[in-house]
């Protein structure tokens, strides 16, 4: 592991009441050898968008996937993740319930090979919701919230795979919203999209900020500066700096952070 002693230059902190989820000394082990150590403790503020930035292999996606235990299958995660006064990194946590509260949207749009409607209702039905009217209502609500309703309201029973990439990604957001999560994790949600779709997606995310907490991994500095409130900079498996987006982009405290920001903006 390189640069284990890399100390963070600045880590922003919040009042207890403002925090929704926070991490403490997370470390991730893949097969016992390769590991990532997030020795800084990050706190995330309610109803904000936090961007996680950094180069490839900096560990930002790995970190994100810890937050709703999506790493369970592939890695061992040590450390604490506090959510509603519970350490959700413990074994006794019901990960299925957890993931209903902390949803996730992935890098590549991954709608199910089912109809648009079924993509949204599938998990609801699995949770036992049978009332058709209520399901229809949730379909409409979540598609409206994801700013997709007007585009697809006439083809709800068509295959989701027939939509454009941007629409598919917004469907994935709608699908996550339908479960009514508190936090939405987004793993480079726009990286597979064209500029027009990306800007639509960003508008959607900005609108959602009033109701949800979002933590988003992104490669795209402009995107991070456009829509996020706070930004954490990851480097070689460590968090080096965490501050308001404004500070990170205009007045970074660490040298590496500054180099990265400047380099990425070109």
């Amino acid at each position, binding site marked *: 592991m390189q640069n284990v002693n890399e100390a963070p230059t600045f880590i922003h902190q919040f009042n207890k009441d403002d925090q929704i989820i926070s991490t403490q000394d997370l470390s991730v082990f893949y097969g016992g050898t390769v590991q990532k150590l997030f020795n800084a403790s990050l706190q995330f503020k309610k109803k904000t968008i936090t961007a996680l930035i950094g180069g490839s292999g900096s560990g930002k996606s790995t970190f994100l996937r810890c937050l709703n235990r999506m790493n369970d299958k592939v890695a061992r995660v040590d450390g604490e993740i506090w959510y509603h006064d519970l350490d959700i990194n413990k074994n006794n946590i019901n990960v299925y319930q957890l993931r209903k509260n902390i949803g996730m949207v992935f890098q590549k749009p991954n709608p199910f090979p089912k109809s648009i409607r079924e993509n949204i209702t599938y998990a609801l039905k699995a949770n036992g919701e049978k009332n058709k009217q209520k399901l229809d209502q949730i379909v409409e609500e979540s598609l409206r919230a994801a700013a997709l309703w007007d585009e697809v309201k006439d083809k709800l029973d068509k295959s989701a795979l027939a939509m454009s990439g941007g629409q598919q990604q917004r469907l994935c957001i709608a699908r996550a919203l339908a*479960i009514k999560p508190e936090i939405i994790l987004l793993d480079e949600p726009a990286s597979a999209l064209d500029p027009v779709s990306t800007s639509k997606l960003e508008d959607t995310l900005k609108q959602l900020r009033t109701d949800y907490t979002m933590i988003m991994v992104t490669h795209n500095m402009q995107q991070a500066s456009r829509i996020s409130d706070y930004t954490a900079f990851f480097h070689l498996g460590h968090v080096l700096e965490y501050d308001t987006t404004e500070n990170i982009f205009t007045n970074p405290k660490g040298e590496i952070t500054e180099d990265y920001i400047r380099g990425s903006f070109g």
Partner: protein
Amino acid sequence: MNAKTRNKIATTGIYTLVSIVVIILFGILGNILVSGVPHLSWHFLSSEASSYQAGGGVRDQLFNSLYLLVLTLIISLPIALGAGIYLAEYAKDNWFTSLIRTTIEILSSLPSIVVGLFGYLLFVVQFGFGFSIISGALALTFFNLPTLTSNIEQAIEGVPEAQRDAGLALGLSNWKTIRGIVLPAALPGILTGIILSAGRIFGEAAALIYTAGQSGSTIDYSNWNPLSPTSFLNIMRPAETLAVHIWKVNTEGIIPDATIVSAATSALLIIVVILFNLGARALGNHLYRKLTAAKS
């Protein structure tokens, strides 16, 4: 001899050997179809086999083959599905998994006569099932399990990881994700695997001669009571299949037209197996297109 001459000789040699292989295949197919198809009459398909006269048919053998095939698939599919899902989704990289893989490899490399003899020991003798359809179906299940399991495992592994992520991130259990999302996506591969193994089951004889038996009993196709000894649905009756029939008329049969009966039966077997293979390919392609392409 220089390098160029050697190159020429080698190329000629390879082309010659390849041509011989192709000629052999067409020779085999041609021989069977030419000598068999002319005798594949409705009479042949719809009449009983004869034990010492010429002119017998294969009605019961054909039905038995199909019945055994269906029963075998009914028994082996759930087990192979469970094992395939376990290996593709749950197996960790540890000693237990390598034990399972070794076990399945051993099972797949066992000669089918050994599998048949084990079926004979356990079901025919030990459990007292006698020579019966159920003994045969169980033996064929053992014969079929390893291939079907690895086909299913491969089909499941072919489903992109993103689909599993999607299900899990919605708070679905692994199992629900597998059943509701991964399995439907893997269906084309699984069906192809099933049909291909159906072809293998249909032509298998060595595992059956000491389990399902080498002779049939009188079968009444209007008797729908599976518990009645004469019913065609009875699983406790002995049953000779098409493949076993070919073997039997050639080795111990005393019917004068053994060669004709075998040729016709062989042609029938081959036609069915080819149909299975073509069907597997067509169905796989069709479902694949249906699942991935846009419905418009």
